[in-house]
């Protein structure tokens, strides 16, 4: 639908979709160090005293992912950064029970109105997407550029021109978000309603109406 299918030897570009990319998970509380002494479980803070490289055991899962590195960097940079692609229903849990096209339409077109943490990818048999997918901007992966280039057969497709431009802007918007507490401008009644849903909310100084009459 919204994809192109570049040849294996085409240069790596932003919006390229790869399968079988390693996603590594680590725990800073439980680093699994391997050295001449065997295997040990060590909190990362205990390894900070020396600056030498350590070797660790990490779990690796093969995932689909999309290149977010800009085209110019993708030509020269030693590393390529990608974002994981997952089932849309897992990334946007609002859609877990969504069935009707009308509801799907509302969810998918949120992009135009809301700065989401995901980018929608429709099903595509040729790429291997049997169901709706989403780029999860929260999960980034880094792989060596030359190694990725040598695995051209793992590239299953690329966003087409329109989707590519949209993707580029969405990445930029996601990473330049201004972090703020969304309740900061709520008035007394709105904040009361908000706190019913989020009891831990700490009002700002200008939201202290304790000295005022109702």
């Amino acid at each position: 639908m919204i994809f192109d299918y570049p040849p294996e030897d085409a240069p790596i570009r932003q919006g390229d979709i790869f399968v079988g990319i390693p996603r590594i998970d680590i725990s800073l509380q439980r680093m699994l160090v391997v050295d001449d002494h065997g295997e040990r479980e060590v909190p990362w803070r205990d390894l900070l005293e020396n600056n030498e490289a350590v070797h660790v055991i990490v779990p690796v899962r093969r995932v689909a992912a999309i290149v977010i590195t800009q085209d110019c960097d993708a030509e020269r940079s030693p590393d390529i950064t990608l974002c994981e692609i997952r089932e849309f229903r897992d990334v946007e849990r609002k859609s877990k029970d969504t069935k009707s096209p009308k509801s799907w339409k509302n969810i998918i077109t949120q992009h135009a109105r809301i700065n989401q943490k995901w980018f929608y990818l429709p099903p595509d048999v040729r790429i291997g997407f049997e169901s709706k997918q989403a780029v999860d901007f929260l999960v980034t992966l880094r792989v060596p550029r030359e190694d990725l280039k040598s695995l051209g057969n793992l590239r299953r497709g690329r966003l087409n021109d329109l989707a590519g431009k949209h993707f580029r802007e969405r990445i930029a918007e996601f990473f330049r978000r201004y972090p703020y507490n969304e309740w900061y401008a709520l008035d007394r009644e709105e904040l009361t309603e908000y706190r019913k849903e989020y009891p831990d909310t700490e009002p700002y100084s200008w939201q202290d109406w304790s000295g005022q009459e109702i």
Partner: protein
Amino acid sequence: MTSGNTATAVEELDTSEDEGQTSLFDVLRGNKFCGTGISARSRGFLNVALILSATSVTAIKDYWVPDTIKTEAQTVNHGIKKPIGRRISRGEALRISQEIQERAERERNEFAEREARGGIQWDKET
């Protein structure tokens, strides 16, 4: 090597007859050992030893002098000399690795659930 020289000097001082009254700084100032019964040959040896130890004293890091080598030297000298952390078997390491992965995925799902509870509920809105 320099610390070895310092140890030699201290050892020599301990064998002197002043029963601990002579400090290293006294020796460096040259106002001790007169009439202590130490032979000229021994004194000569001590001088050599103390010169070396003094060299090592001046070589300690001066915080007001920028030292570009300092960081490198610390890096080299602070390697893992003895195992730290809890020793585990390969099997346990693999089991923990699996737990780390499961936890990471569980936390991602929980985060997605929390996010979904906030914001616009599209089904309700329509």
